[in-house]
């Protein structure tokens, strides 16, 4: 087949759903107009460990407007079948199935009422008594369980023999995803059929869990999620409140809307776990790293064993001959963590990249140069060739654009009034994840197309990028193509996580639309009345809705003409993408992150003055949106580096700062000059559309670049996140 000209792909389109979003007409999980819907409010446990000994719901039940109060005492038994999915190993929290309290803020009851005001107030009237036991919520000094090991060479011996040795311990705070839209679900039963409007990063995730909990067949559950107000990972699992909404709707026989409060967002929808990360690094005088020994520990819950990709970077980022890794998770009386933007990689990158900066300083080698000296030619963990790895080019481009050569390497060497100025650099890297995906496309006689897949758009711009791919594949203008997502009635797609959507769903959309175009082309070349009759289908392209011979554009006809003559209302096609089972390539996206900070050293203030990142991510489908995503990742990294810290009171396991005034995320005034550069690329070894994924990568490496800049500004090295005034005074 002849490749289609790429007009929409690569052009700086505005978001196709933009108008809905700027007019307030984009409907999120509890915005849908569901007639007769009532409101549910969850009651949370106020202890972290123990059991419920009493539950007085009488005041709540008698409050006007209250329809039902559900607790473990009156909730129906639910099946909670295990199934092969992405839930972590263990026994997941079962809503209202027993009297056990596993963590602070666990749902212990739900109140359903006709108004929000009544439901909220009645929830505060539910009296719960507990038998409390001493909870354990502090990671510090706890041995944990070994859940991963890796070794190559003899790391201990190489470390002992190294010219330069660093041994560091990092303490990385727990972070919460905090999407601006609180998790929420609207549930409605129509007989045996359940419809959920859910905030989720994957409608099939919700369906799978609901089917397993209620033991109902998939055809009886429909999950709808056209707009998702951010996720950053928190929507990659179906949390108890979704089950509670469905349960409440069934119990009261009415549609139910359940939105978590902001406070509850800190209790039951996961978090980036706190890390205690011991790292040892040995190198020779020439700046070649000879040994890296990693001992990361992170939090998990006592009921589930959380896993995230903590080890990969330590194995493949640099050409280190001797590596050892022991990964532990530490069970605590907390809710189970969940992957947050750049999961595992963001945390590990902080430790490796700060240590590399320390090594550079120790050796008197430029930090960029140090990284280039340790650049591998093949993946040192597998021996595989890289599909593409242009990290060196990222650093060279970044150094040039950032003005790195003007840097005086001496710490505390630059001052601007009360501000010490410093610059720092770090590597970012994230795995190119790929998943199975399917799509459906339909081309109508009027020359417009509708393409769909049950993926999600929590912000990256999936509506737009898929429209761009489909428009080019079908030879249509962007406005003639509509992409739909977020509904389990659509072809299956993986959840929107691990940056796999563009590559996976995009490849499926490409396949589907290619098939559909070829179907039309075959119809034309086989049609005696078509000007294209008898032409080799491989010589036909579609441009502007017109099928034509590639080298003789005058010969051809439009979709409309073809369809009309053949009395066709439409053509349709199903397509899919299945990643290659054993790819011979090592596939990662890369970035070089440059940061400049000002530190008011007397007052301990750190302000980021600028960040420049250069990315190697293969092909960029939607450059305007990719730019936004990169800047967003930088802002997430600024939060991780300087502000974000979920604080637990270890006396009783209470999360102390469960609100947006005390858990600080960056505000507009924190953000100044951010810039992203994408290397022009196309990685067809990775996947058919040549992309390597953005969403996670854009955050990885940002926090260490900032920390390294803080060191350069002040001479003060901080191994704890976030970096706050007390560490700098």
């Amino acid at each position: 087949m002849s490749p289609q000209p790429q007009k929409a792909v690569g052009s700086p389109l505005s978001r196709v759903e933009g108008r809905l979003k700027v007019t307030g007409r984009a409907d999120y999980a509890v915005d849908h107009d569901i007639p007769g819907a009532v409101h549910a409010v969850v009651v949370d446990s106020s202890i972290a460990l123990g059991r419920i000994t009493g539950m007085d719901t009488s005041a709540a039940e008698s409050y006007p407007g209250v329809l039902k109060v559900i607790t473990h005492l009156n909730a129906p038994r639910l099946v909670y079948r295990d199934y092969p999915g992405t839930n972590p190993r263990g026994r997941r929290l079962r809503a209202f199935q027993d009297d056990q309290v596993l963590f602070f803020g666990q749902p212990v009851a739900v109140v359903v009422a006709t108004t929000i005001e009544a439901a909220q107030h009645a929830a505060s009237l539910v009296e719960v008594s507990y038998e409390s036991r001493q909870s354990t919520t502090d990671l510090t000094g706890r041995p944990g369980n070994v859940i991963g090991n890796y070794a190559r060479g003899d790391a201990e011996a190489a470390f002992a023999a190294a010219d330069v040795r660093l041994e560091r311990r990092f303490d990385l705070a727990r972070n919460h995803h905090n999407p601006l839209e609180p998790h929420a679900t609207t549930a409605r039963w129509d007989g045996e059929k359940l419809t959920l409007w859910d905030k989720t990063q994957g409608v099939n995730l919700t369906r799978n869990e609901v089917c397993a909990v209620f033991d109902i067949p998939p055809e009886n559950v429909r999950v709808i999620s056209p707009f998702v107000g951010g996720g950053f990972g928190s929507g990659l699992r179906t949390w108890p409140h979704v089950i509670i909404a469905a349960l409440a709707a069934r119990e009261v026989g009415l549609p139910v809307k359940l939105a978590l409060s902001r406070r509850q967002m800190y209790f039951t929808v996961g978090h980036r776990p706190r890390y205690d990360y011991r790292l040892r690094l040995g190198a020779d005088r020439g700046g070649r790293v000879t040994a890296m020994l990693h001992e990361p520990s992170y939090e998990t819950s006592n009921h589930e064993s959380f896993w995230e990709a903590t080890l990969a970077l330590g194995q493949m980022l640099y050409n280190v001959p001797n590596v050892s890794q022991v990964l532990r998770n530490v069970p605590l009386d907390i809710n189970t963590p969940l992957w947050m933007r750049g999961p595992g990689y963001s945390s590990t990158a902080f430790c490796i990249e700060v240590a590399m900066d320390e090594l550079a300083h120790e050796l008197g080698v430029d930090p960029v140069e140090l990284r280039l000296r340790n650049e591998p030619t093949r993946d040192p963990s597998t021996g595989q060739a890289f599909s593409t790895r242009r990290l060196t080019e990222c650093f060279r481009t970044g150094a040039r654009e950032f003005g790195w050569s003007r840097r005086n390497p001496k710490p505390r060497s630059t001052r601007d009034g009360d501000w010490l100025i410093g610059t720092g650099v770090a590597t970012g890297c994230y795995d190119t994840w790929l998943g199975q995906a399917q799509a459906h496309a339909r081309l109508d006689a009027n020359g417009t197309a509708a393409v769909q897949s049950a993926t999600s758009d929590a912000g990256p711009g999936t509506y737009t990028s898929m429209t761009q791919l489909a428009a080019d594949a079908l030879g249509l203008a962007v406005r003639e193509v509509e992409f739909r997502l977020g509904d389990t009635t659509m072809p299956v797609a993986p959840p929107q996580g691990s940056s796999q959507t563009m590559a996976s769903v995009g490849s499926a959309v490409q396949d589907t639309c290619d098939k559909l175009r070829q179907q039309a082309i075959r119809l034309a070349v086989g049609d005696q009345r078509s000007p294209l009759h008898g032409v080799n289908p491989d010589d036909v392209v579609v441009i502007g809705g017109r099928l034509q011979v590639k080298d003789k554009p005058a010969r051809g006809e439009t979709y409309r003409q073809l369809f009309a003559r053949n009395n066709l209302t439409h053509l349709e096609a199903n397509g899919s993408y299945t990643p290659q089972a054993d790819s011979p390539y090592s596939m990662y996206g890369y970035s070089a992150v440059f940061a400049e900070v000002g530190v008011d050293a007397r007052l301990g203030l750190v302000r980021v003055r600028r960040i420049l990142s250069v990315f190697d991510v293969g092909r960029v489908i939607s450059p305007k949106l990719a730019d936004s995503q990169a800047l967003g990742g930088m802002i997430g990294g600024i939060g991780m580096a300087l502000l974000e810290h979920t604080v637990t009171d270890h006396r009783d396991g209470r999360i102390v700062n469960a609100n947006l005034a005390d858990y600080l995320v960056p505000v507009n005034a924190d953000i100044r000059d951010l810039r992203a550069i994408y290397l022009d690329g196309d990685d067809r070894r990775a996947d058919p559309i040549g992309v390597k994924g953005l969403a996670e990568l854009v955050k990885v490496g940002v926090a260490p670049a900032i920390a390294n800049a803080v060191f350069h500004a002040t001479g003060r090295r901080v191994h704890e996140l976030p970096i706050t005034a007390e560490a700098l005074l």
Partner: protein
Amino acid sequence: MPTDPPAAESSALSRRTFVTTTVAVGGAVAVGDLVAAPLALGAAPAAATEAVLSTRVSLVVNGKQVTATVDNRTSLLDLLREHLGLTGSKKGCNAGACGACTVLVDGRRVNGCLTLAVRLEGAKVTTIEGLENGDRLHPLQQAFIDQDAFQCGFCTPGQIMSGIGCLQEGHTGSADEIREWMSGNLCRCGCYVKITRAVEQAARWK
């Protein structure tokens, strides 16, 4: 160390307070003809001696007169979302800490979540739904699209309403000034650079 949590005490307090203040009035709200009738609650009407816990209030929302009997506890945000079907204003924190609920009341930007609807007798409220002029977007709405000043879109209505306040107040003298005066609106996707550009674009248009 409070190994024995104070929950029981606190609940006991709730109960006492409840007994002394509540009366038998339904939480239901009737709002003119704008919404379907709420469910019948079967609640007894308030006796004359009891405090009145709901109030009739008339205000103008996006140019339309609205008269509603509201539970005194109802926030402007909930009035808009639950009773007027105007779900463009968002509930991000319900505590004045995120700005997603920002609307204009009598021309000034405020947090809808901390504004009690009952206090708005005679007020003029403008929400994101009230900005379009026929098919034409407000210049700031268009600027948000042009600059790609949003990703997930959830904070966007609040950002735009706050941006309109910022423009009207004249706090658009520099990018730094815009940044400071747009800092009452969190964006977790991290679109601040482009939000600032969008406000700058609209300020030029103005």
